[in-house]
């Protein structure tokens, strides 16, 4: 099964990335944000800028739980289409995610 991570900020701002392109998840020092890094082309760049970032706002001190949930879904989940965060439908992979922090970059 080829799994994909879906992030939707709005109907005109969403991205879906093969899960194997996720390279790391960072928890900020307040434990209220998870930054997911993917290795792929970013907006209007070629070459070395291969970092595509999705920031997730999460409940304070729940970032580790969010990371665990994402990891578990990628490793053992049954769904190929993994909705990490969908602000339009308020659908999140973990209840502790409250929003995608900022707009997603366009891939151009």
């Amino acid at each position, binding site marked *: *099964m*080829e799994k*994909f991570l*879906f992030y*939707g900020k709005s*109907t*005109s*701002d*969403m*991205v*879906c*990335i*093969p*899960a*194997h*392109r996720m390279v790391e998840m960072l928890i900020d020092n307040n434990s209220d944000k998870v930054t997911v890094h*993917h290795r*792929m*082309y970013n907006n209007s*760049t*070629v*070459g*070395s*800028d291969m970092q*595509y970032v999705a920031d997730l706002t999460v409940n304070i001190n729940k970032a580790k739980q969010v990371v665990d949930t994402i990891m578990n879904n990628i490793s053992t989940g049954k769904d*190929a*289409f993994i909705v990490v965060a*969908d602000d*339009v*439908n308020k659908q999140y992979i973990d209840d502790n995610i409250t929003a995608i922090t900022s707009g*997603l970059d*366009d*891939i*151009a």
Partner: protein
Amino acid sequence: MIDTNTNLSNRFFYVNQSPTSASDSARTFPMSRLIAMNMIGDGDLRMSFDDSGAGDHTIVQILMTSGKGKEAIKDIVDAINSNQKIVVLADEFTGESIINDYEGGSVTVSSGSIGAFALNGNLSVAGSSTFNGAATFNAGIQGKRRTQHLDQGTAAPTVGQSGSILVFDGDECTVTLPACAIGLEYTFLFRESHSGSDLAIITTAPADKLFGSLIRAVDGLSASFADDGTQVDTTTGTDDNTMTMNGTTKGGIVGSRIQVTGLTANKWQVHGELIGSGNQITVFS
């Protein structure tokens, strides 16, 4: 990670951006080369694929029903995880698509800039570099210029050495310039004085000529033009294609400098300052 049971290299996406032909302008991508799917506007799906350019990608744009981006992306994910060997992303000619909300609208494939490569960080190259195309340095350039010591009997700087400094070391040396072309430039510095039979000679290819002036001077403050003072040595290229410096009457004392620059085919512009001694005579012949 990719499930080892899923081989995406032998399964393909097909897209046809021609509304009038079943195959003109059609493109096929292995599923394994899919990088991402991105909705950048309502009904505007962009799919990014690795391509053959260095650090580059190709974008497939599919216009579809507005507000159905998530459903469209899921349709594609489902197709990837099906058993279909060839998945039609969108075919403008037939209107076919794996995306349920594709309405037969515009399909555009934009190849990346072939070979384009952007580096957002610093670059350190341990070895030498060759730029076969034009190079632009928007923030300026700094560093030592390349040098070549003229300590052999002959020297023949190449086109690739244009821009470098060639240093006369006081040894006899005849330098033959390459065939003249606009933009070529060589700077000659005299780091030691020439004397006796140890001449410093700069000559051109047979069809090329020299045009320009050299300031000629001797040691000390020169208040007037004179044979043994300051002079201007000029050539207009009728016959001259050689400069000979002997360290005395034809200049070539340490501190002298000559620059030659290509004006066009067969025409070198020359300027500089030659320091000599005694009554100065022309270096051009």
